[in-house]
């Protein structure tokens, strides 16, 4: 059985700029899939191509196995929530939501019933006859969502819909979006450059870099097992230390940072042996010690450069051998006396916490 939506070898150029380079992707029915990447990485370009706003330079977009590349935007039956919402300013909330049914010449009574159900779903009861300009940012976002869902699209495209909102409201609306996704069962395709937002909401995340999808997986897999230095550094904070003398030993990788031995569990350890590589460790996986830990590997000396108080956690910045900089986060109380600038401490980490990546 063909996938719900398939992208096959999609390429798109604007003049000499290649926005998409040979992207292929299957979107499963009912999933919450996020395109995540820095600006200009091609995620919005692909979204616009799927919506039918911009044709691909080459490649195909398939819906249930059928090529929809030539279908105009108004016949694709995909809903979209725009970045600035693009609500029709001259129409009220219910007129906005009912727009797609009106242009489809749906009977008036049915329009009213379906619009009323959407108004309930997004919690806009009492605001039905207001104009968008009289609504708050969060309410506008809900209207945009209802408008895009009322005609029961097969796919809902969301183009950075939360980026205009402040932090608290954004977190609240993230929960609501996940909730509506669960209730409607519609396939959600979400575009964002905010990695926290992506991790908090998605079933799967596709990470875009310079027109390519570099990794596509569940959020925890991407966070814990990034397949490249780009993914590792893009998702959250990551320490990357250049390693040398790496060799594969029984499915494990043994290497050195300066004079200190490091080990990481790697199924494809053979491939990295002898090539330039970095050791990647999350700041929260590092443990700070005042005495040299009793271990033969996975420990490094660290000279403290600064301690940044962040309320619940404290960030410690410092430098490791070979001039590499290290960042680690700890709970405030874990340290006893906070370390001071210039102090010489040790860090250690577990056998499964570090990863060696090409770079």
């Amino acid at each position: 059985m063909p996938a719900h939506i398939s992208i096959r070898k999609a390429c798109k150029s604007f003049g000499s700029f290649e926005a998409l380079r040979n992207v292929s992707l299957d979107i499963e029915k009912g999933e919450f899939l996020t395109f995540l990447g820095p600006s200009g990485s091609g995620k919005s370009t692909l979204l616009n191509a799927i919506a039918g706003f911009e044709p691909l330079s080459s490649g195909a977009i398939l819906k249930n196995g059928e090529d929809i590349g030539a279908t105009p935007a108004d016949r694709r039956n995909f809903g979209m929530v725009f970045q600035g919402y693009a609500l029709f300013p001259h129409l009220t909330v219910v007129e906005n939501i009912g727009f797609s049914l009106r242009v489809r010449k749906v009977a008036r009574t049915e329009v009213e019933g379906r619009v009323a159900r959407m108004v309930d779903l997004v919690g806009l009861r009492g605001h039905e006859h207001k104009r968008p300009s009289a609504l708050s940012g969060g309410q506008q976002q809900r209207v945009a969502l209802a408008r895009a869902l009322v005609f029961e699209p097969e796919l809902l495209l969301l183009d950075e819909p939360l980026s205009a909102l402040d932090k608290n409201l954004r977190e609240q609306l993230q929960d609501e979006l996940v909730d509506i996704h669960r209730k409607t069962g519609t396939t959600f395709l979400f575009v964002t450059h905010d990695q926290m937002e992506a991790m908090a909401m998605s079933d799967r995340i596709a990470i875009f870099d310079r027109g390519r999808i570099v990794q596509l997986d569940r959020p925890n897999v991407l966070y814990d097992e990034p397949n490249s230095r780009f993914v590792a550094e893009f998702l959250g904070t990551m320490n990357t230390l250049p390693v040398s003398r790496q060799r594969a030993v029984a499915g494990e990788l043994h290497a050195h940072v300066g004079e200190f031995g490091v080990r990481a569990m790697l199924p494809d350890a053979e491939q990295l042996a002898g090539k330039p590589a970095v050791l990647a460790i999350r700041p929260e996986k590092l443990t700070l010690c005042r005495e040299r830990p009793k271990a033969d590997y996975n420990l490094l000396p660290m000279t403290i450069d600064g301690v940044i108080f962040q309320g619940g956690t404290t960030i410690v910045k410092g430098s490791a051998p070979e001039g590499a900089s290290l960042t680690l986060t700890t709970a405030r109380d874990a340290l006893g006396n906070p370390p001071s600038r210039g102090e010489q401490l040790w860090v250690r980490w577990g056998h499964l916490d570090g990863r060696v990546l090409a770079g």
Partner: protein
Amino acid sequence: MFGKSRLGGFLAGASGLFLLLPLVAVIPFSFTAKRFLSMPDGEYSLRHYVAIFDPDTWLASIGTSTLVALLSSVIATALAAAFGIGIWLRRPASGRFLIGLVLLPIIVPPVTSAVALYFLLAQIGLLDTVPGLVLSHVVMIVPFAVIAILGALSRLDRNLELAARNLGASQMQSIIMVILPNIRFGLFAAWFVSLVMSWEESSVTLFVSGVNVITLPKRIWDNLRLDLDPAVAAISVIMILATTLVILLRKSET
């Protein structure tokens, strides 16, 4: 923020005074009891205001001006809207060039326009006719209507059109149901500017009409040149009041 400059205040006051003084000075002249243009010396009269209601002269000209202004403003607005929406939707590579080309005639000296239109209308036999005058006015005012409509379109969120298409509206539906309603103030502004400009147009009108078709500015001109009729002052006062009224109305709207 830019400091309180006394010299600036003086220049601002002087500018205002210079600009308004003549407009105010014309008021007493309109109330003279004499038959020629003069300061009233103790005797005031409304006779020149009454004269405006002569159906053969002033009233006829007001009618002609209104007819020409209505026709040319509607045609100019329609042309400008079609041009503006076309450019906005298609965003052709030559868009900026085309817009520049349409706006450029604003800088044509009125005398040059007058000569050119005189020449053209003479060739096609429309000199001194209402259609000829309408055609001339449309040529003169289309660029201004385009400015008003492009202004409204530039404030229109491009995503509105994409949203309409995404929600299933055809191109025509999206123009009628989304674009036009959202530039309605721009359309109105374009129409209103066109109306006013056509109504008061004089430089070209003087050249291309004048015997069969006499607009209000043309009649003022003739009267002033021929017999210094104080009715000219009366009609000027009425037009100044009308302008003030329009400005006040637009202020209260916003």
